[in-house]
């Protein structure tokens, strides 16, 4: 039993090392954003900034062509807009698919499963033309919000359907005996019970839209309405050497992702397995 004693610290220690090495790129991103231009290109590199240097952040607010907080606000508007649309549409749809028997429901579920896997670049050109004809291309968030919701809806429908289907049927039966109609049962009883599933669906709808680059940079004609990701893309294209500025952008963009991760980590793992495996 010598092995057991040794492994009680060996494995956790090895685990921490593995994870630290794996996530080194994220550390490097954040650390670089606090370095001076000169320190970034120093050889050998410094593993920690000599002095914390905030100019990469403050510069974005005053002098540059792209305002970092404006980008953050744009990304938030787009992500919350897409989140709202996909949640409002996906909750009833998933409940309908989980609980009611009607002709064509298998085909409809299959349709959601398939659209979940379709990449944005597949429909980008016709969607652009369609939105242009609707007058939603140009200085407007709408085209991007509507397009991003098409990623959140199928994912939410598929994960939430599994969730609703796993709830006991007795809930609805007793509600019916108490005189609740279908709408009341759905709104007052089923949705509150399904909150953990709804949270997963909402988080992923948010993350899909938060990470979007292609819709935002293609559909929004006005530079100062584009999301953070588009700002980064522009920065890398035209000012390719100011790494601390781009890394500052990156650091700001990952803040919501890290916060979401810290608070609801266990939901995320379950969401990934439910949504992706049967997928």
């Amino acid at each position, binding site marked *: 039993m010598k092995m057991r004693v040794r492994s009680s610290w060996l494995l*956790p220690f090895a685990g921490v090392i593995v994870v630290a090495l794996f996530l080194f790129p994220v550390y490097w991103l954040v650390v670089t954003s606090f370095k001076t231009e000169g320190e970034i290109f120093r050889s050998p590199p410094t593993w920690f900034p000599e002095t914390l240097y905030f100019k990469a952040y403050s510069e974005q607010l005053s002098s540059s062509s792209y305002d970092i907080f404006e980008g953050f606000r744009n990304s938030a508007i787009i992500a919350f807009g897409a989140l709202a649309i996909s949640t409002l549409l996906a909750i009833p749809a998933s409940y309908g698919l989980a609980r009611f028997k009607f002709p064509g429901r298998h085909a409809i579920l299959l349709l959601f*499963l398939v659209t979940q896997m379709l990449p944005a670049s597949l429909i980008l050109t016709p*969607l652009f033309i369609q939105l242009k004809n609707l007058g939603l291309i140009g200085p407007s968030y709408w085209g991007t919000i509507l397009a991003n919701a098409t990623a959140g809806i199928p994912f939410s429908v598929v994960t939430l359907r599994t969730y609703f289907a796993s709830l006991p049927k007795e809930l609805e039966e007793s509600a019916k005996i108490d005189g609740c109609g279908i709408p009341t049962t759905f709104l007052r009883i089923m949705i509150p019970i399904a909150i953990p599933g709804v949270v997963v669906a909402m988080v992923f709808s948010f993350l899909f839209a938060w990470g979007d680059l292609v819709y935002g940079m293609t559909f929004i004609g006005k530079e100062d309405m584009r999301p953070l990701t588009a700002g980064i893309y522009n920065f890398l294209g035209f000012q390719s050497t100011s790494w601390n500025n781009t890394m500052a952008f990156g650091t700001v963009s990952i803040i919501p992702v890290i916060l979401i991760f810290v608070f609801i980590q266990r939901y995320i793992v379950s969401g990934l397995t439910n949504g992706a495996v049967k997928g």
Partner: protein
Amino acid sequence: MARSTQRLAGYLFVLPALIYMLFFVGYPIFDNFRLSLYDVNVMNVSQGTQPFVGMDNYKELFGEGILGTALINTLIYTVACIVLQFVIGLAFAMFFAKPFRMAQRLRGIVMISWLLPATITAMMFKFMFSTNGGIINELLTKFHIPGSPVEWLVTPVPAMFALVLANTWIGIPFNMILLTTGLTTIPKDIYESASIDGAGAFQRFFRITLPLLKPAILSLLVLGFIYTFKVFELVLIMTHGGPVNATQMMSTYAYKLSFDEFNFSLGAATSNVMFLVLFVVGFLYLRLVHKEEVSGS
């Protein structure tokens, strides 16, 4: 509940989302086919006549265009990513399946790489792979690796390699989590009785773990293919398809045709070829899932 009520309620609940998806995804997919058979560009997209050209767009793309190159690039990239992600993901899954303190928490933290916006990941790796000041070249030179420093993102093969590494970093958690789920379904006593029968770790892995993971592995490979094949942000930001189309992918090529050259028909035709590849793979996947469900797993 009466059958008619069931029907009516079902449709009322499902229709709003369904109509939305048909309008913003279904119609565009249909329109992609139409666009690819016509000549639609920035001049005639909103007004004027759009001439029907049949298969000319496809001929042009495979002839003078580089659609063939883009298709091969994307396939090489996808296969390389899937293999690497799978091997490392499986190693991670097996490591964190061991019962030690913090195992689950650490496994959760690995998920971060999968959740980050692809744009940010691309930017991080572009910086790390940059020829001057990039940490990867710094390390290679420090340990006197022959051939270093490498001009990663501006030489064809290293550029593809850098893209594969960046995408593998994103894909590892996905593989790890799905394989972890697969590992939990393998009963522990199979390993115990195999040990008693004298099977070594090597044999246990190849004779028990891999065969019993087969269903999980199959769906993982197919999903991995679909999610990797659509790569866009990584390439656009790290190499922009370069040098000289050496890393041009289906998605970036379609984007370039439609939104840099404003030739919407050529862009749509490229997307259609992409759709065809994904459709075949997706069809295989659905057959697979269906079979599994029928056989009761």
